[in-house]
C-alpha cells in the first residue's frame, strides 16, 4: 500500500532504523486510533476509505458483506443516556433502522475493530480502531466525554498496573489509544461548545488531531474561512491539539530541512479537511485518453476525487497517521501523555493509601534513582573487572567498608597493597584498557559526594597525589571508592527496595480497587435511576388502572340507568304487578357478572 512508504521517511530513521525496521516487520506495528465526532460527519466512511476495504458497516446497514477483519467488531462499553438498562442501548450496535425508537436517546458505545494490514515490503500493521457511535446524539452529551475519558484513563491504568507489577505478563497487550481523530461538524461557523469541551477534556489522555468531516460541503473560499475560524477558536479557548511543529527545534536545520518543511506545512494545513468515499469510479484522462480508477463521490454536477490534494487533505492525513507520524504519535503517547498521567496517578494513589504517605510519595524519585543506581552498579562492576578478576562479593564489600570506615588511612593502604598486587598481574592485560578505565572513574568521582559521606572525599584527598606519581597506584582509589559507594547505596536502597516492592504490590491493586469502586458507584447510580424509572412507570400504570376503573363504574351506572329505563318502558306493556321483581334481579345479576368480566379485562389491559 502506497501509504506506508513513509516507514523509511526521515522521522522514522532517527533511532537505528534498520534494527527497528526488521523487528517491526516481524512482529508488526501496533497502532490504535479512535474516531470521535457527531453522527453523519463521515467517520465510518473515512475508516473504510483509509483502509481501502470495508471494515466497518454503516449505521443502518446490515452487518453482512464484511471484508476480512481480524476479529469481529466488539463493543467495549456503553452507557445509555438515562443510565437505565433499557433495550435502547442496543440501537447503537444493532444495524437496523427502526423509526419508532429513533427518538430515544442512544447513549454512547465504544466499539473496537482490529484490522491487519500488510504493505508491499511485508510490513505488518496491526490497527485497532475504536469507534464511538452515539457521540453527540443525545440531548445531554456530557456523558459522552465522561465515557470516553473513562475508557482512555482505564487503558492508562492497565499499563500502569502492568508496569508496577513484579511478575509481568508477557502477553500483555497495550491498548492505549495513540491518536484521536476528532471530526468537526462542517458548520462553517467555527467550533461549538461540544467540540471545545470534548477536545479539552480528552487531550490529557490522547493526541488529538482535529479534522473537518465532509469537507465537500464547502467551496474553496468557505473552507479557507472555516479553517481560520477553527484556528482562532482553538487559540482562543486553548484547545490542546496535536502540534506538528512542536519539536522542530530538536532537528538540525540543515540535515532535516525537508522534515522541518513538512512539519511546518502540516501545522499550517491543520485542521485537515477530509472527503472520503467507498465508491470507485473510472475516469478517463482527457489528455492521454487513459482510464484510471479513483475513489470519489459522484454528484449530478461533478465527480469529487478524494485523493485530489487541491481540495481534500485525505491523502495527507492518511500518510501522516499511517506513515510519517505513526511512531511520533506512539512515542508522544508513551513519553509524554502517559508519563504525566502516571506521575499524577501515582502521587495520588500513594498519598491515598494510608500509613506510609510520606515515604511513598517519593516513589517516583526513588524509582528514578533506582534505575540510575542499577546503571551505576553495572558500571562499577564493569570497571572492577578491569582492575580485578574477582568481583567483590557482598561480604567482601562489607569488610572493606568496615575497615575503611574505622581506619581510613590504614584501610586504604591495605587496599592498595592488595590491588597493586592484583593489578600488577593484570597490568599486562589491562594496560590497554586503562585509558578507558581512567576515564570511567572520573564521572564517578563527581558522583560520589552525592552518595557517600565525607569518608569518600577524604579518601579522595588522600589518593589524588598518588595519581601523579604512578598509574598503577592510581588504580586503587576508584576501586576503593566504588565499594564504598555501592555499600552506601545498598544501605540507603535497603528501605527503598522494600518500598518499591510494596508499591509494586499495592499499586496495581489500589488501581483496580479504585476502578471497581468507580464501577460499583456507577452501577448503583444506574440502579437508582432504573428504580426511579420503574416507580414512575408503576405510578403511571396505577393511574391508568384507576382511570379504567372509574370508566368501568360510569359505564356500569349507565348500564343500570339504561336497564331501568328499559324496564320503565317495558313494565307498562307487561302485566303490572307480580312479574316485575324477578327480571330486575336477573338483570342485576347479569350486570354484575358483566362488570366482573369487564373488570377482569381492564386489569389485563393494565397489565399489558
Amino acid at each position, binding site marked *: 500500500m502506497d501509504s506506508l512508504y513513509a516507514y523509511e521517511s526521515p522521522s522514522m530513521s532517527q533511532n537505528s532504523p534498520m534494527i527497528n525496521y526488521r523487528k517491526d516487520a516481524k512482529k508488526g506495528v501496533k497502532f490504535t486510533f479512535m474516531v470521535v465526532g*457527531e*453522527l*453523519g*460527519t463521515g467517520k465510518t466512511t473515512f475508516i473504510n476509505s483509509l483502509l481501502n476495504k470495508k471494515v466497518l458497516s454503516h*449505521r*443502518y446497514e446490515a452487518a453482512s458483506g464484511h471484508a476480512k477483519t481480524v476479529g469481529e467488531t466488539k463493543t467495549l462499553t456503553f452507557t445509555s443516556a438515562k443510565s437505565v438498562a433499557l433495550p435502547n442501548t442496543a440501537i447503537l450496535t444493532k444495524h437496523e*433502522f427502526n*423509526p*419508532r425508537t*429513533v*427518538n*430515544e*436517546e*442512544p447513549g454512547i458505545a465504544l466499539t473496537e475493530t482490529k484490522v491487519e494490514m500488510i504493505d508491499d515490503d511485508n510490513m505488518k500493521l496491526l490497527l485497532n480502531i475504536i469507534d464511538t457511535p452515539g457521540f453527540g*446524539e*443525545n*440531548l*445531554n*452529551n*456530557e456523558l459522552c466525554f465522561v465515557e470516553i475519558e473513562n475508557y482512555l484513563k482505564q487503558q492508562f491504568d492497565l499499563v500502569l498496573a502492568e508496569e508496577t507489577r513484579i511478575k509481568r505478563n508477557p502477553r500483555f497487550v497495550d491498548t492505549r489509544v495513540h491518536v484521536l481523530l476528532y471530526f468537526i*461538524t*462542517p*458548520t*462553517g*461557523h*467555527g*467550533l*461549538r*461548545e*461540544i467540540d*471545545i*469541551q470534548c477536545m479539552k477534556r480528552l487531550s490529557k489522555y490522547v493526541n488529538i488531531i482535529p479534522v473537518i468531516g*465532509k469537507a*465537500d*460541503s464547502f*467551496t*474553496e473560499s468557505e473552507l479557507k474561512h472555516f479553517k481560520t*475560524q477553527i484556528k*482562532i477558536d482553538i487559540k*482562543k*479557548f486553548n484547545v490542546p491539539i496535536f502540534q506538528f511543529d512542536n519539536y522542530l527545534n530538536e532537528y538540525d536545520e540543515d540535515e532535516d530541512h525537508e522534515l522541518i518543511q513538512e512539519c511546518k506545512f502540516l501545522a499550517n494545513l491543520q485542521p485537515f479537511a477530509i472527503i472520503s468515499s467507498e465508491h470507485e469510479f473510472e475516469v478517463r484522462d482527457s489528455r492521454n485518453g487513459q482510464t484510471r480508477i479513483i475513489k470519489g*463521490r*459522484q*454528484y*449530478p*454536477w*461533478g*465527480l*469529487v*476525487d478524494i485523493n*485530489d490534494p*487541491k*481540495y481534500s487533505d485525505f491523502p495527507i492525513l492518511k500518510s501522516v497517521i499511517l506513515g510519517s507520524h505513526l511512531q511520533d504519535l506512539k512515542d508522544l503517547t508513551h513519553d509524554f501523555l502517559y508519563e504525566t498521567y502516571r506521575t499524577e496517578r501515582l502521587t495520588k494513589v500513594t498519598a491515598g493509601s494510608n500509613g506510609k504517605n510520606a515515604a511513598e510519595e517519593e516513589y517516583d524519585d526513588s524509582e528514578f534513582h533506582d534505575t540510575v543506581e542499577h546503571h551505576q552498579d553495572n558500571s562499577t562492576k564493569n570497571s572492577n573487572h578491569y582492575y580485578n578478576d574477582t568481583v567483590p562479593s557482598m561480604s567482601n564489600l562489607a569488610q572493606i567498608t568496615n575497615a575503611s570506615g574505622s581506619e581510613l588511612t590504614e584501610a586504604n593502604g591495605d587496599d592498595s597493597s592488595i590491588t597493586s598486587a592484583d593489578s600488577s598481574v593484570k597490568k599486562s592485560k589491562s594496560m590497554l584498557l586503562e585509558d578507558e578505565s581512567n576515564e570511567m572513574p572520573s564521572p564517578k568521582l563527581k558522583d560520589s559526594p552525592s552518595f557517600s559521606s565525607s569518608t569518600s572525599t577524604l579518601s579522595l584527598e588522600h589518593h589524588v597525589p598518588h595519581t601523579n606519581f604512578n598509574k598503577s597506584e592510581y588504580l586503587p582509589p576508584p576501586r576503593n571508592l566504588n565499594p564504598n559507594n555501592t555499600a552506601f547505596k545498598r544501605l540507603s536502597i535497603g528501605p527503598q527496595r522494600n518500598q518499591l516492592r510494596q508499591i509494586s504490590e499495592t499499586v496495581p491493586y489500589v488501581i483496580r480497587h479504585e476502578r471497581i469502586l468507580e464501577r460499583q458507584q456507577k452501577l448503583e447510580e444506574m440502579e437508582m435511576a432504573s428504580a*426511579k424509572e420503574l416507580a*414512575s412507570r408503576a*405510578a*403511571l400504570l396505577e*393511574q391508568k388502572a384507576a*382511570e379504567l376503573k372509574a370508566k368501568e363504574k360510569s359505564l356500569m351506572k349507565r348500564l343500570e340507568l339504561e336497564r331501568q329505563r328499559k324496564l320503565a318502558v317495558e313494565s307498562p306493556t307487561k302485566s303490572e304487578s307480580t312479574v316485575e321483581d324477578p327480571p330486575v334481579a336477573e338483570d342485576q345479576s347479569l350486570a354484575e357478572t358483566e362488570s366482573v368480566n369487564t373488570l377482569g379485562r381492564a386489569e389485563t389491559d393494565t397489565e399489558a
Partner: protein
Amino acid sequence: MPEPVGIANLPNQRYKIVSKQGATFTLMVAGESGLGKTTFINTLFQSSLKAYQDASERHNKFTSAHQTVEIDIVRAILEEKNFKVRLNIIDTPGFGNNVNNHDSWTPIIDFIDDQHESYMKQEQQPSRLNKKDLRVHACLYFIRPTGHSLKPLDIEIMKRLSTRVNLIPIIAKADTLSPIELEAFKSRIRDVIEAQDINIYTPPLELDDPASAEHSKQLIESMPFAIIGSEEEYEVAPGNFVRGRKYPWGLVEVENDQHCDFKKLRSLLLRTNMLDLVLSTNEFHFETFRSVKLGGNDDDAGNEGEKDEDANENGDVVKKSLAKKPRRLHNPKFKEEEDALKKFFTEQVKAEEQRFRQWETNIVNERNRLNQDLEEMQTKLKSLEEQVKKLQLLKR
C-alpha cells in the same frame, strides 16, 4: 340578454383591496447552527435580508463556548410588481449548539405560544384595528445532512413545533449527499416522521383542479425538501447567470430540479400555498390554541400528548381533570442557573462568615493577650512600687 348583476365582480374588488393592502407573512427558520439558514433566507427572497453573524462579534459576544438560544426577528417589505409583502423572518441562533441541549427548544416554543397569546388578547380588546400579528405562518426546520436519520433533539423539537405551526422539514446543505444517499435519507426521515406522529404541513389536494392537485402531489412526494442555498451567481452560458455554488468539481445550481428541491419549496412557500399557510395558521393552529386557552376543554387530540409528556417529565402524576396545561413560565434552564447561582452565593456568604468569625476569634485572642500583658505589667508595677516603698522604708 340581461346585463349581469355584477356579483361576479366581487373577486376583482377583493383583488384590488388585497393588492392595495399587501400581505403579511411570517416565516420561522429553526435548526442547528451552520446549516445555512441565513443563506437560505437570502436565497429565497433574492436579496440580503439577513446579515451574517459576524465572526469577530461572535468572539466578543461569547466569552465562553456556551450559548443560549435567542430569538432574532428581521422585518422587511418586499415589493414585486407593485405588490407589497411585509415579511417577518424569525431566526433562532444558538439552537443545538451546546453540550446539554435539554430544553433548548423552550425559547422557540414559548415564542410561538406568546405570539398566539398576544394576538388573542389583542382580539379581545375593545379597539382591535391595529393588531400586531407575529404568529408564525410557516416554520422551516433544517435537518443536518447526516445521511443517517433524525436525532432525538430533532424529533423532540419537531414534535412540539408540529402541534403549533405549519412545520416544513427541509434537508439543509443537500449538496453533500449524492442522489442515492439523499433518497435513502429522505425515506428514513419520512418513516421517522410517520412513526413518531409528527404532523408536517402538507399542501391541500384540490381534487377539482387536476393541475394543482398534481403539483401538490409532487410537492408531497418530494418532502422533506433537499435544499441548497447560495447568494453567488455564476455565468453558465454567455449572458445567462444562475445562482449556485462553485466547487472545484462542478457547479451546483440552486434552481435546478436535478440538483435540489429549492424551486419546489419556493413554490410551496410563496407562489402557490402562501395563502393556505396563512389561513391554516389562523384557522387551525390559532383556533386550537384559543380553544385550549379559553375553554380549558382538553379533549383536543393535539394537546393530550403534550400533557402526557409533562406528566412524564415531572415524574409526578397530574390529574387529567385538573390538567389545564400549566404554561411554563420559567425556562428550566434558567432555573438551573438560578440554583447554581444561589448555591454559589450561599457558599460565598458562608466562606465570608467563616472568615469574619476567624477574625473575631483572632481579635478576641489578641485582646486577651493584651489584657494579660496589661495585668502582668500592672503586677510588675505593683511589685516595683512595693520595692520602691521598701527601699524608701529602708532609706528611712
